[in-house]
């Protein structure tokens, strides 16, 4: 059964490697369309920006640029829509955006997209997956963008209502409007509870998955789902925040599964990225396409080889062996176009993990069944390498050549 699954995975990986350059922007394009149409349906006050060509154009740009651009477009679009009906609310919204950016979003540039993902997914009740995913793939600093997403989600609702109000150009009206908006935001227990629960979920998932016990990753996801459900139930009971219990439980579970799937895919995608690089030396120009190995059993076989030399204690040879691990005798070299099978750098990061398993395998030769130990023993395992492990790895390498420190200092 496991073998079949692995084979399927390998097929998916190989296909993905080939179509990656189309799939990634396409997914982003579709998501961008979702974001912009959601904004247009919710706040479509300005008919100039609700047209299909505009949405498609913005989505196309967002598809090929970093996610920050998508967030910028989304923010700009909401502002333009609100500006069309109510200048004062637009100013207020801009002000809130600046504060949100300065206090929450700027600390995690990689995760700014969360600010739009949460409001969009919330329409399908799938926003519970975001904190679980953040906890399982990143660190607690992602609490900040997640909070931002939750605030934006509630803010849009409040602003939508406020924008519809008739406001005369006098102090009383404007102050009254601002007071209303802030009252609604501050007294929004649903928002505050959501922030608290999401922050808890991220922390719990992150904390548990860092442990080294078996299945810690799956347990962390389960704990995340549980905290999510319990958190919202308590909020429901204590603060009378209306939550549909059935939907909450089902969607939380579904979100857990989605988070697991996304995390799994992310891990795979990080590994399978085909790299094209160019460089030169005195004799040649090289145009290298580095294709990460997806064949896992092959790596497993190398593992034993590596270990023995490490145990032998010959340091220099040990270094050499690491090189040989990558050695692929039947690579086809053409004149200037080198097709090389190469492990991605990301995979390299997991070496300390292999290292441990290598020792374990040597001690217990019965466990060297190449087909099975894969799920947990290699880079595709359920755990991310935590810092301690990396530390070990580097220390290990430091021992190998002593002049390392001096080089590092330079």
């Amino acid at each position, binding site marked *: 059964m496991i073998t079949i699954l692995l084979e399927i995975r390998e097929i998916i990986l190989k296909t993905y490697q080939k179509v990656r350059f189309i799939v990634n922007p396409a997914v982003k394009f579709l998501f961008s369309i979702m974001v912009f149409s959601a904004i247009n349906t919710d706040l479509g006050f300005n008919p100039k920006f609700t047209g299909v060509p505009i949405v498609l154009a913005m989505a196309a740009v967002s598809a090929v640029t970093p996610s920050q651009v998508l967030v910028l477009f989304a923010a700009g679009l909401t502002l333009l829509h609100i500006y069309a009906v109510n200048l004062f609310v637009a100013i207020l919204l801009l002000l809130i955006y600046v504060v949100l950016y300065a206090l929450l979003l700027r600390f995690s540039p990689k995760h700014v997209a969360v600010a739009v993902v949460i409001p969009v997914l919330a329409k399908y009740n799938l926003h519970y997956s975001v904190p679980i995913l953040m906890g399982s793939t990143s660190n607690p600093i992602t609490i900040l963008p997640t909070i931002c997403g939750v605030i934006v989600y509630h803010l849009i609702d409040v602003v939508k209502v406020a924008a519809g109000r008739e406001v005369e150009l006098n102090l009383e009206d404007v102050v009254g409007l*601002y007071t209303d908006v802030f009252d609604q935001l501050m007294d929004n227990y649903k928002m505050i509870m959501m922030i608290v629960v999401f922050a808890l979920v991220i922390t719990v998932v992150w904390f548990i998955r860092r442990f080294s016990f078996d299945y810690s990753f799956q347990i962390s996801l389960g704990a995340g789902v549980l905290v999510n459900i319990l958190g919202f139930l308590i909020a429901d009971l204590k603060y009378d925040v209306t939550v549909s219990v059935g939907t909450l439980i089902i969607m939380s579970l579904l979100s857990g599964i989605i988070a697991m799937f996304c995390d799994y895919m992310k891990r795979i995608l990080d590994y399978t990225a085909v790299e094209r690089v160019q460089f030169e030396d005195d004799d040649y120009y090289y145009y290298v396409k580095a294709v990460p190995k997806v064949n896992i059993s092959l790596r497993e076989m190398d593992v034993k080889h590596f270990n023995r030399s490490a145990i032998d204690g010959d340091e220099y040879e040990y270094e050499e062996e690491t090189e040989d691990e990558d050695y692929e005798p039947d690579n086809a070299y053409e004149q200037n176009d080198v097709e090389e099978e190469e492990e991605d*750098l990301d995979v390299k990061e997991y070496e300390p993990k292999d290292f441990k398993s290598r020792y374990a395998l040597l001690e217990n030769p019965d466990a060297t069944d190449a087909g099975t130990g894969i799920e947990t023993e290699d880079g595709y395992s359920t755990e991310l390498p935590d810092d301690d492990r990396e530390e070990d790895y580097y220390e290990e390498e430091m021992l190998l050549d002593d002049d390392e420190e001096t080089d590092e200092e330079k």
Partner: protein
Amino acid sequence: MLNERKIRLMTQLAIYEKKEGKEDFKLARYYKGDYTRFQAWKTGVAVTVAYLLLVAVAVIYKLEYLIENAFNIDYEALGKKILGLYIIVLATYVIIAMVCYSLKYAASRKKLARYFRMLRKLNHIYLVEDGIVQEDEDK
């Protein structure tokens, strides 16, 4: 004659430079202290701007009350309150920023160390190729 080991090293170096390297090289221009302090400053400025905006909003929010009680308000106490809160918020943010950015710096340093290690190996290959050192000679 193509040297596979050399190509392998150069490929890894090139991939690193293309991806994570960019960021790491930027960080490498600073000393750790300078980098974290610089980031802390930026955070401080951002927090200050945000706080000023929030105070402005709060003033509008309470404008009615402020105008009505313009002569009865203890401005000194209010000012102290606002300043105190500002210092707390600023300190929290700056401390968190310093911790996070120094962790980031340390991580990039490790990756950079690996990069230099690979570079040295490559250099060794060059030396061997040029006949300056023997193949089996230790670095």
